[in-house]
């Protein structure tokens, strides 16, 4: 599963994208955030306020309880500030 990071989530983690293989028990977006947070200090810092983090699965906004099964690409980013 490909994961992408944007804006300060990207900066804190130190990379724009990677391929991950979370264990089977990680079923939702919020569980994936918790699992990623345990990988290193950098991930823990990026996801220190999980409620602020927005997620998209295959280019569509999703809520924290969305299932990640079947996702090709999951993205994490701060609230959008375009326009």
């Amino acid at each position, binding site marked *: 599963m490909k994961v992408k990071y944007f804006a300060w989530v990207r900066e804190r983690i130190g990379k724009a994208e990677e391929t991950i293989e979370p264990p089977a028990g990680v079923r939702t977006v919020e569980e994936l955030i918790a699992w990623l947070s345990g990988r290193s200090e950098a991930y823990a810092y990026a996801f220190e306020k999980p409620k602020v983090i927005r997620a998209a699965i295959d280019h569509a906004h999703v809520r924290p309880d969305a299932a990640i099964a079947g996702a090709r690409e999951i993205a994490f980013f701060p609230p*959008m*500030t375009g326009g």
Partner: protein
Amino acid sequence: MTGPVTIRIQEDDFDIAREIAGLTKGRTDVGAVVSFSGICRGDEDSAKISALTLEHYPGMAEEEIRRHVDEAVSRWPLNGVTVIHRVGRITPGENIVLVVTASQHRQAAFEAAEFLMDYLKTSAPFWKKEESAGGTGWVEAHARDDEAAARWTKS
């Protein structure tokens, strides 16, 4: 809808007159054209800004804008829509974003342009980083933008 839809994400500036002409030239069914251009200001909440850098999520940004353009087209009788969002480094006074809507009637053109801008602000995956004398930092989302977008939600 009978008319063109253009969505572009680009580093280059845009030409408002050319984009308006693209929706109206050679046609006699358009009665109203609204353009909105968003410009980089030199100060934000009294802090001086020397530049913005705009990052986006390629692929999703275009799709997200397309979804909202499709919704605008289904809600208002439009004759054409153009949305251009710049990315990269932008200095004060430069254009950031352009929305142009064309319709037979002015209210549809106005409302669709406002709707698209409100959604671009809150749901299109773009992020602004500000450079100022005090360093650089990511712009925080405004609650007022969420409120502006919420007014279009059908109840």
